[in-house]
């Protein structure tokens, strides 16, 4: 066994042809099925939607983070969407809209009637799921 102090950098190089053959044998890209992508995306959305805002804010601003976030939320007007599901009013329905609605429900902020995606008279988690489904379908 060679002591590593005796090993020169040149001893740790591989010829180009060896490199190419190793990559051909072991490095061929693997196709990831669309359903795996979808599973990950749904998990991502659920995770971020379920992550308490305070936890994120505390990560960003260790000092008085919750108070600052509450103050910001109080002065920012709620955007009214023109497209069903466009909670943040940026002109498209994406995963952030589901995220935003979940946050507002969690914070018991004012809920707009137009966010009742399934028209059952309630704005609840079903509506959040519907927005997320639309967003994932559009990706």
């Amino acid at each position, binding site marked *: *066994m*060679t*002591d*590593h*102090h005796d*090993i020169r950098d040149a*001893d*740790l*190089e*591989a*010829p*180009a*042809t*060896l*490199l190419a*053959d*190793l*990559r*051909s*044998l*072991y*490095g*061929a*890209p*693997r*196709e*990831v*099925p669309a359903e*795996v*992508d979808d*599973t*990950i*995306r749904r*998990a*991502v*959305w659920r*995770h*971020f939607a379920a*992550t308490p*805002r305070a*936890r*994120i804010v505390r*990560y*960003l601003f260790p000092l008085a983070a919750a108070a600052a976030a509450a103050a910001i939320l109080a002065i920012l007007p709620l955007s009214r969407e023109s497209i069903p599901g466009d909670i943040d009013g940026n002109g498209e329905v*994406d*995963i*952030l809209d589901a*995220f935003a609605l979940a946050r507002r429900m969690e914070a018991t902020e004012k809920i707009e009637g137009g966010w009742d995606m399934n028209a059952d008279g309630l704005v609840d988690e079903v509506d959040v799921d519907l927005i997320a489904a639309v967003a994932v379908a559009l990706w």
Partner: protein
Amino acid sequence: MAESNGRSDEQLVEAANRGDPRAFDALYQRHKAWAAQLSYRFTGNHDDAMDVMQEAFIYLLRKFPGFRLTAAFTTFLYPVIKNIALSRLRKTRRIVLDENIVLYAGEPPKESGAERSLADIVTTLPAIHREVLLMRFVDDMKLEDIAEALAVPLGTVKSRLHNALKALREDESTRSYFEELQ
């Protein structure tokens, strides 16, 4: 790779820490092919590899917010995938595995004679040597990153890689590769 889409891995991690799910999705899109290939290397089975890769990203997801990227993203992901794969193999195949084993050595050789010989030789290398060889030359990881991913000293990585190359250099089937270096 780490700078594609205009944002580095570090920037995407920061954005995900601020609660942006699209940043995490971008990280996933950027690294999924490598993660899938690595998972396959450990499991030798496509379905198992997909499950392992999925579990690894879910594990990573749960680290947010608050995840600190202190090394290359792949350096963090490598041991996660390895541990999940080995744990899964222990459960499903009811066998005892050495923690340091890279179980699956590669696909059966199928083309040229030279390629077949290389696969055979790599397969017979000690697992810890084979693992470092593939991390360095297939995954293109730096020696320092390999050391961190495997939680071993840099000298150990150098020693393992040196021994792997020495075996290839001394085997008559793969010796010809090294003639170009002389």
